[in-house]
């Protein structure tokens, strides 16, 4: 019996920590286990006993890369609990803020983490030596996203201007003007990114995913909508726990998520693109078509192209919102606290992010539930590895290890940054 273990050792990492073990026995992948250590569990406990109004600021600190996603799911859940409707320009500003996070998070992943995999570099530094202008384009795109987050969020990292009901302060039209100029340039950079990623050497890997994403009848869903899938799921956000179940897996502090009836599922750019393609802007759809993408995409390696298309869309959408912007009469809506339960689900750059809170009559948080996209995708990452690695066993050991890393990075999991640094330990037994 031949047995080979591909092991990615644990490495301390602040935004998220992970490890991978793939075991190959008699030419078959017998096990693919991803261990992820995520912070939301701590934050759920930390939130209990705090006031509902603190949730956006506290949850923003869960992740340095996607704080807006945590804030957005938190405020939507609280507003659902307290019957607050946020519409018009306040709603549009939230969408603008989310566009900023999509741009900066996707640009980071495309250029700093994922592209080096395709080009055969150990990391972005090596890539920058040979392709300085391309790396500069990535940094510039990310900066454009950060500019939105800084203006609307109050600061770049862990924004503080978002509150339940709206914002503490809303921008003037004049304040948004320079942002439009930045975004017009970013949109050109995003289009170039689509063309560039489309030309990368793409491994063949079509997967039969159960794709799950938010869907909104009037827009490419970010903040609100129903949860739908390519296999007929169509539910309100409040029904999330009736259809999805989290389970403890001993190897990971992150809970694994499963659909009660369909087991593992995929959230994130591929799901959004495939389920909501028709709602992309015409420019984004055209860029996708030129890049050779169909109206759906289930090759996980092509996620780098799909993310680039979403960056084009986010730039386009941000410019539309800025162009239509009228300063709102008041920066936020209010309501009296009450004993209640609220649900919020938004599209983080990595996929669906679900929050649920139970409040007492004074607005104190009795219970918090946070289900991040990486926990939802974890079973799907393992399924990808198990399915794909079997076809790569003839590859040299180094290439096989790199493919495993690349496969994990297709998902842009919270551990992306860490795994890019890992020196994999291949053991032959």
């Amino acid at each position, binding site marked *: 019996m031949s047995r080979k273990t591909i092991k990615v050792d644990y490495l*301390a990492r602040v935004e998220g920590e992970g490890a991978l073990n793939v075991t190959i026995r008699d030419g078959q992948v017998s096990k693919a286990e991803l261990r992820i250590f995520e912070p939301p569990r701590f*934050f759920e406990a930390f939130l209990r006993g705090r006031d509902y109004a603190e949730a956006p600021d506290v949850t923003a600190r869960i992740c340095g890369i996607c704080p807006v996603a945590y804030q957005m799911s938190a405020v939507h859940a609280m507003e659902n609990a307290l019957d607050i409707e946020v519409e018009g320009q306040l709603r549009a500003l939230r969408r603008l803020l989310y566009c900023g996070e999509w741009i900066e998070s996707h640009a980071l992943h495309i250029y700093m983490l994922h592209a080096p995999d395709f080009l055969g570099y150990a990391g972005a530094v090596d890539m*920058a030596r040979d392709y300085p202008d391309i790396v500069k384009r990535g940094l510039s795109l990310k900066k454009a996203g950060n500019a939105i987050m800084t203006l609307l969020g109050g600061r770049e990292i862990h924004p503080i201007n978002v509150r339940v009901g709206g914002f503490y302060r809303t921008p003037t039209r004049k304040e948004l003007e320079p942002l439009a100029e930045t975004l017009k340039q970013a949109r050109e950079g995003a289009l170039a990114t689509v063309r560039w990623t489309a030309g990368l050497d793409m491994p063949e890997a079509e997967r039969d995913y159960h794709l799950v994403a938010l869907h909104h009848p009037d827009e490419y869903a970010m903040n609100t909508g129903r949860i739908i899938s390519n296999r007929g799921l169509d539910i309100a956000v409040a029904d999330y726990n009736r259809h999805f179940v989290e389970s403890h897996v001993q190897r990971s502090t992150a809970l694994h998520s499963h659909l009660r009836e369909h087991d593992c599922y995929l959230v994130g750019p591929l799901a959004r693109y495939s389920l909501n393609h028709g709602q992309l802007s015409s420019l984004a759809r055209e860029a996708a078509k030129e890049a050779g993408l169909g109206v759906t995409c289930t090759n996980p390696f092509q996620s780098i192209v799909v993310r680039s298309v979403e960056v084009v869309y986010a730039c386009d959408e941000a410019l539309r919102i800025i162009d239509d912007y009228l300063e709102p009469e008041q920066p936020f809506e209010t309501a009296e606290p009450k004993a209640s339960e609220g649900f919020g689900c938004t599209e983080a750059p990595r996929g669906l992010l679900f929050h649920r809170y139970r409040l007492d009559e004074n607005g104190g948080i009795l219970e918090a539930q946070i289900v991040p996209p990486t926990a939802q995708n974890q079973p799907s990452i393992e399924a990808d590895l198990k399915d794909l690695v079997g076809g790569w066993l003839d590859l040299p050991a180094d290439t096989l290890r790199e493919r495993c890393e690349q496969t994990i990075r297709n998902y842009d999991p919270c551990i992306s940054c860490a795994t890019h640094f890992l020196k994999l330990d291949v053991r032959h037994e």
Partner: protein
Amino acid sequence: MSDVSGPIRVIGIGNRDRGDDALGPLVVDALRGRLPATVSAVEHSGEVAGLVDLISGAGAVYLVDAAVMGLEPGTAREFDASTSPLPALGGAFSSHALGLSEAIELARALDALPSVCRVFAVEATSFEAGEGLSQPVADTLPRVTQAMIDSIRQESGHA
């Protein structure tokens, strides 16, 4: 004294909610009111692209971060990264795996590294969520703060 042209920046890297990783932000707090008006001190998560931007736009940078160097907890080390990479790039140097070391090297690869780039690292004990600084790191914090002030005075000409 170096010939520094461009902004002088102190960058405290870390997360206030993750044990000793709070060192960088807390040094920034401790520096408030003790730096010349021409020197700015900012807190940063350690995310690589943002760091590159902060570093590459400066005339001189002084970075402080909690680290895992295999030393006694609380041990402080100072590195001149202006001419050569930090030791063990890509390994266990910084608490931010894709952050400080890579940001410096990216800035260098893009020919945007300032002529002064000093890194102050303190050996951490724990990065557990929700914990404060460990005692050894808390004890070292005032010394690191003073060392950074001294360096800025000597190298950037701010007496």
